[in-house]
């Protein structure tokens, strides 16, 4: 575990050096948040919107903004670069560490810093705009929320890493990675809550992994899930984590068989 701890420490230091990039990313998220909140508030709607009051919808987006810095991982392109540029050999294959684990801790270094920036930005937004996220939690529901965020985060890491190792075959993975982001954007509830979808479509969406990355934690936060749905939601998150991990390992092992690196 000590070697992963060293990787984590090193990546936290790197994250602190490139803090400007994290600020830019939060700023980008803030612009999207501004658009969505302004759009909903300009509707002047007083009733329920897809089962949400305007206040709980605002909470959905405000907490969603924070979630962006917690559940999303950006390792796909780094893995792709290491495979296509040949540095995979030096970075992983000759070291006594798991590539999956090393990447996880590399990303975790950034992940420890990014939510702090997210909280700070959110506090500024709340202070300036006067908007307040609803906060009517029990201890159990708050722990459930955090647990679902953790599971969603691991699930998204598995998805990103699996797409990254596709570079053993395809060289470029930007396009296919974009498909995953599209999935999270619409079918994961990043653009609008999933309760806006027709019921028959919703049944299909509930089977896909995207909901369990982003929407499910927010549904817990906004108290849209019953106790039964909470248990089945956690179970589905764990099943998807296991399934994507198996897919990653299969791709990794098959990819290594055909991998060749050049250079000294």
């Amino acid at each position, binding site marked *: 575990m000590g070697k992963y701890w060293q990787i984590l420490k090193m990546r936290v230091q790197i994250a602190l050096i490139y803090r400007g990039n994290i600020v830019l990313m939060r700023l980008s*998220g803030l*612009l999207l948040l501004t658009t969505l909140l302004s759009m909903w508030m300009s509707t002047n709607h007083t009733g329920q919107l897809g089962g949400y009051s305007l206040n709980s919808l605002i909470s959905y987006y405000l907490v969603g903004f924070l979630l962006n810095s917690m559940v999303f991982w950006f390792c796909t392109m780094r893995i792709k670069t290491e495979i296509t540029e040949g540095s995979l050999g030096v970075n992983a294959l000759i070291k006594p560490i798991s590539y999956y684990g090393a990447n996880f801790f590399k990303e975790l270094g950034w992940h420890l810093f990014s939510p702090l920036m997210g909280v700070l930005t959110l506090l500024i937004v709340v202070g300036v705009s006067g908007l307040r996220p609803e906060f009517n939690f029990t201890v159990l529901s708050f722990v459930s929320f955090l647990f679902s965020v953790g599971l969603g985060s691991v699930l998204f890491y598995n998805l990103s890493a699996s797409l990254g190792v596709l570079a053993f075959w395809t*060289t470029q993975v930007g396009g296919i990675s974009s498909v995953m982001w599209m999935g999270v954007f619409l079918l994961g509830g990043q653009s609008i809550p999933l309760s806006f979808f027709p019921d028959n479509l919703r049944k299909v969406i509930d089977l896909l992994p995207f909901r369990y990355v982003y929407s499910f934690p927010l549904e817990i936060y906004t108290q849209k899930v019953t106790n039964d749905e909470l248990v089945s939601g956690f179970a589905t998150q764990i099943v998807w984590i296991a399934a994507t991990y198996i897919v990653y390992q299969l791709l990794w092992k098959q990819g290594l068989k055909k991998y060749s690196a050049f250079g000294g």
Partner: protein
Amino acid sequence: MLLGVNMMKYLKVAGAFYRYCLIRLLEFRSEFWTWSLVSPGWGFLSLATILLIFNQVNDIAGWTRTEVVLTSVAGSIFMSLLWWMVFPSLYNFMELIRTGGFDFYLLKPINSQFLVSVSRFEFDNYLRVVIMVGLLIFLGLTGYITATLASVVCFVVTIFFGLIIFYSFFFIISTLAIWLINMEGIEDFFDSVITLGRYPTYIYNGVLRVVFFYIIPMAFVATFPIKVLLGKTGLETVVLSGLMAGGFLLASHKFWLFALRHYSSASS
């Protein structure tokens, strides 16, 4: 005559870069075809989001469903054109600053701002432009838009001036690389800025409305072009967009010359 010769030289240089980028594209054909499918997908996602929202509300800032759909389509075209002709060169410029390759651009006997601005083109979004323009034509033919030939021409001209405004705006931000060196992550920021303009700008109130109308003129992304197309505003908006485009272009050039005086090479 001299102006004509100069113009030809500049067009030839831009054409040479364009051909070079097309040849580069052939190296990664599978990625190109993947993006050809993915890119229109993003446009459709925005439309799907709007349609789902309008299942719940009657209007957004007083704009009807058709008007908001049109704004999103125009915004999608605008974004695709930026990705085609503007962003790739700006990202390439920032990379050149970081790696020291920018020196070579300064040595060439041609306007350096022009050279860095036409150095890269990306064609991934061509199908999205075709589909979204096709959608506009379809909406026109089926009676959702009542436009005249004059309003269509004014729409195209307003989009063109909008592109110049935002080329200049993003060029000024990219030029900050001369001081900041590493601007990794700026792609997402540029993308998000344009996203602000893909809904009617009237959704913003108070300070935000002032900022997005007058400081970062988001209305020129899609709101004004669609108003022009629908005949809700006339030639005065086209003239205003032309004046704004001229002002922004001039400001970007002045800032460029100022920045170059502070440039110190990263290479040896």
